[in-house]
C-alpha cells in the first residue's frame, strides 16, 4: 500500500483546520435558519402590537358642548338616559329598548351609546404604534394641517371595555365579548366530546387491542385523520351537524324555535371531531409511557384488565392526558376555517346563552376585521389577536402547571 497518500504533519493540520472551518461556516448557515424563525416570530408579535396601539384622529359630528353642559365623562346613568331619550328618534330608542331595556343598561353602555349615536364620533385616520412613537411630530403636523377640527389621541385598542362590549359595526365601539364567550362555548363542547371518546379509544388501542387487521386500520386511520385539512372537517360538520342533524343541533326537538343548524353546538361538535385524533394520539403517548411493571404488579395480585387500567394505568397517565387535551383545546381555540364553513355569524351582538345560540368566535372576528379595508378594523383585529394569544398562553401555562403539579405526586 502506498504509504503517504494521506496528508501528514503540517499538511494534515492545515487539512483538518480547513475541515473545521467548513463546519463552522455551515454551523452559521444552520443557525441562521433559527435566527430567521426568531425574527419571524418577533416580527409577527411586534406587528400585532404595532396595530393594537397608536394615535387616532377623530372628529365629532355633533359638538359635545351642544348636547350637554357638563362634560360627558361626568354624567351619571340617569342623566345619560335622559340625554339619549332627548336626542334619539323615537323609533331608534324603542328598538334599542327592545334589544335590552334601556333603564337596566350600565352607565358605560349608555355612555358608549351616546357617543356612538348622538355625538357620532368619526375616525379620520389611525396610526400604528411605531409610527406614533417615532414620528409623533410629523403626525401632529399632518393632523393639524389636514384635519384642523379633529382631536388627536393616543389610544390602546385593547382595553377592558374591548373585552366586555359586544360586537359593533363601528370599530371604535366594537368588542370581543360575544366572540370570547363563543370561543369558550366551542372549546367546552369540543372537549366534552373529544376527551371521553379520545381517551377511550386510546385505552382500547394501548391496553386491549391485539395485533389484528382491524386494529391496524384503526391506528392508521387515526394518524390520517390528524392530517386531514381542517376545512374538510368544516365540510363534514356542515353536512352532518348543520344540515342532517338540524333538528337536534338547532334545538328544535327541545322546543327552540328561532334557530337553524348553524349553532355553537354544531360548531363545537365539528371542533370536537377535529381535535379527536390529537387527543387520541396524545393520550396514547401518555399511556405508553406508563411502565409495564405497574400493569404486571396489578395483574399479579389478581386484578382484571379494567381494574388495572382504571386504578393504575389511567392515574399514572393522567398528567400526560391532561396536557395533551389542553394542547388540543388550544388547537380548537385557534382554528378558523371550519367555523367559517359551519357558519359562524358575521354579525352578532347577543351573548351565546345556550348550545343552540348563534355564535361567533375570536379567530372569526380576527379574520373578518382583518379582511376589512378600513385601517381601524385592522387595529381592532390586532387587539383581538392579543386577546386570542393571551387565551392560548393561559391554556399552555395551565398545561405546564398541571403537568408539573401532578407529576410530583407519583
Amino acid at each position, binding site marked *: *500500500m*502506498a*504509504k503517504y*497518500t*494521506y*496528508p501528514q504533519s503540517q499538511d*494534515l*493540520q492545515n*487539512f*483538518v483546520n480547513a*475541515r473545521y472551518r467548513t463546519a463552522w461556516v455551515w454551523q452559521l448557515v444552520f443557525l441562521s435558519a433559527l435566527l430567521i424563525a426568531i425574527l419571524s416570530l418577533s416580527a409577527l408579535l411586534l406587528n400585532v402590537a404595532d396595530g393594537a396601539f397608536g394615535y387616532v384622529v377623530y372628529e365629532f359630528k355633533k359638538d359635545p358642548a351642544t348636547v350637554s353642559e357638563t362634560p360627558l365623562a361626568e354624567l351619571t346613568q340617569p342623566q345619560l338616559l335622559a340625554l339619549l331619550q332627548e336626542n334619539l328618534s323615537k323609533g331608534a330608542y324603542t328598538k334599542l329598548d327592545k334589544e335590552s331595556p334601556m333603564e337596566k343598561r350600565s352607565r358605560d353602555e349608555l355612555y358608549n351609546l351616546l357617543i356612538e349615536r348622538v355625538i357620532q364620533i368619526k375616525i379620520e385616520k389611525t396610526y400604528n404604534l411605531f409610527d406614533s412613537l417615532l414620528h409623533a411630530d410629523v403626525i401632529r403636523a399632518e393632523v393639524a394641517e389636514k384635519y384642523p377640527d379633529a382631536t388627536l389621541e393616543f389610544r390602546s385598542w385593547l382595553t377592558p371595555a374591548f373585552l366586555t362590549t359586544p360586537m359593533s359595526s363601528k370599530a371604535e365601539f366594537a368588542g370581543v365579548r360575544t366572540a370570547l364567550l363563543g370561543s369558550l362555548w366551542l372549546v367546552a363542547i369540543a372537549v366534552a366530546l373529544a376527551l371521553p371518546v379520545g381517551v377511550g379509544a386510546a385505552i382500547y388501542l394501548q391496553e386491549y387491542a391485539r395485533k389484528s387487521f382491524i386494529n391496524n386500520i384503526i391506528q392508521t386511520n387515526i394518524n390520517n385523520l390528524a392530517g386531514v385539512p381542517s376545512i374538510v372537517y368544516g365540510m363534514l360538520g356542515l353536512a352532518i351537524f348543520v344540515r342532517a342533524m338540524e333538528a337536534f343541533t338547532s334545538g328544535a326537538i327541545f322546543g327552540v324555535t328561532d334557530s337553524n343548524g348553524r349553532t355553537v353546538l354544531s360548531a363545537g361538535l365539528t371542533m370536537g371531531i377535529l381535535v379527536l385524533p390529537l387527543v387520541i394520539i396524545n393520550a396514547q403517548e401518555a399511556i405508553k409511557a406508563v411502565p409495564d411493571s405497574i400493569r404486571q404488579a396489578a395483574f399479579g395480585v389478581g386484578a382484571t384488565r379494567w381494574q388495572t387500567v382504571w386504578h393504575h394505568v389511567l392515574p399514572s397517565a393522567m398528567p400526560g392526558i391532561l396536557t395533551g387535551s389542553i394542547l388540543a383545546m388550544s388547537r380548537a381555540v385557534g382554528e378558523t376555517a371550519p367555523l367559517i364553513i359551519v357558519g359562524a355569524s358575521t354579525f352578532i351582538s347577543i351573548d351565546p346563552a345556550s348550545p343552540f345560540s348563534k355564535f361567533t368566535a375570536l379567530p372569526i372576528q380576527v379574520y373578518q376585521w382583518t379582511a376589512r379595508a378600513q385601517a381601524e378594523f385592522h387595529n381592532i383585529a390586532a387587539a383581538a389577536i392579543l386577546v386570542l394569544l393571551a387565551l392560548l398562553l393561559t391554556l399552555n401555562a395551565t398545561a405546564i402547571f398541571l403537568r408539573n403539579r401532578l407529576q410530583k405526586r407519583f
Partner: protein
Amino acid sequence: MQPETPQYAIETRDLSIFYGAFEAVKGVNLNIEKGKITAIIGPSGCGKSTLLRAFNRMNDFVPTSRVKGEILLHGVNLYGKEIDPVEVRRRLGMVFQKPNPFPKSIYENIAWGARINGFRGNMDELVEESLRGAALWDEVKDKLKQSAYALSGGQQQRLCIARTIAIQPEIILMDEPASALDPISTLRIEELMQELKKNYTILIVTHNMQQAARVSDYTAMMMLYEDTRSGTVIEFDKTDVIFTRPTDKRTEDYVTGRFG
C-alpha cells in the same frame, strides 16, 4: 544476547477516567508494544470499554466524562490542550462490538473515510487493497455497489475492519469485535488479526479467554476495586504468563473460570 528494547506504540500514565463523580477506571499504567496484539480482559463492568474508548477519545462524546493522567502516543499526550481529537481518531482506528457499516454501498463504506481524511490516490485501488487486507475481497468483489446491509454479520464486521485499515491508522482498537459473530466468522476475524499484526498495533477487548490466549501477545487483566467499584489493571504481562503462571490470585481464578 542483549534483549531488544521494546518500542511502545502507546503508553498510559496514571490514567483515570471519570463519569461525573464516578471513577470508572483508576490508575492505569500500560505500555503497549508496537506491532503486537494486546488483549484486555476482565469481568463485565470493570471498565474495559471505557479504557479502550479513552485511547481514541471516543469518550469525549459522553458529556460527563473526564480524564486524569496521560495517554502518550510517541510521547505526546493525547489529552493535551492543543490536541485535536479528530486527528487522534484518524491515527487510532476503532472496530466496534456490533458491526456498524454505514447505510451506503460496500465501496462507499471504505471510500468515505478515506475521502474525508483527504486521501489522494486511486480510490478503486485503495478499496480493493483494504478489502483484501480484511480478507473480504473475494466475497464482495462483484457487488461493491450493493448496500453493506446485505452482507452477513461476519462480513459486515470485516468490512468495518477494512474501512478502518483504509485510513491507515497506527493502532486498531477492537471492542469485543467477534462477540456478535458465529464461531466460523470469529475464526476468520482472528486469522485476520494475525495478518494485520504485521502492519498495525492491535488492542482488543474480549470476554473470550480462549480468544485472548489464542490471538494476543500481551494481556492486561482488569478488575474492580471492591470498595470504590472502580476498575483497574491488576496484572499486565505476556499472554502465556497471564494464562499459565499469573502472580495475582484473582487473575488465576478468572482465567481458569473460578471467578466469583
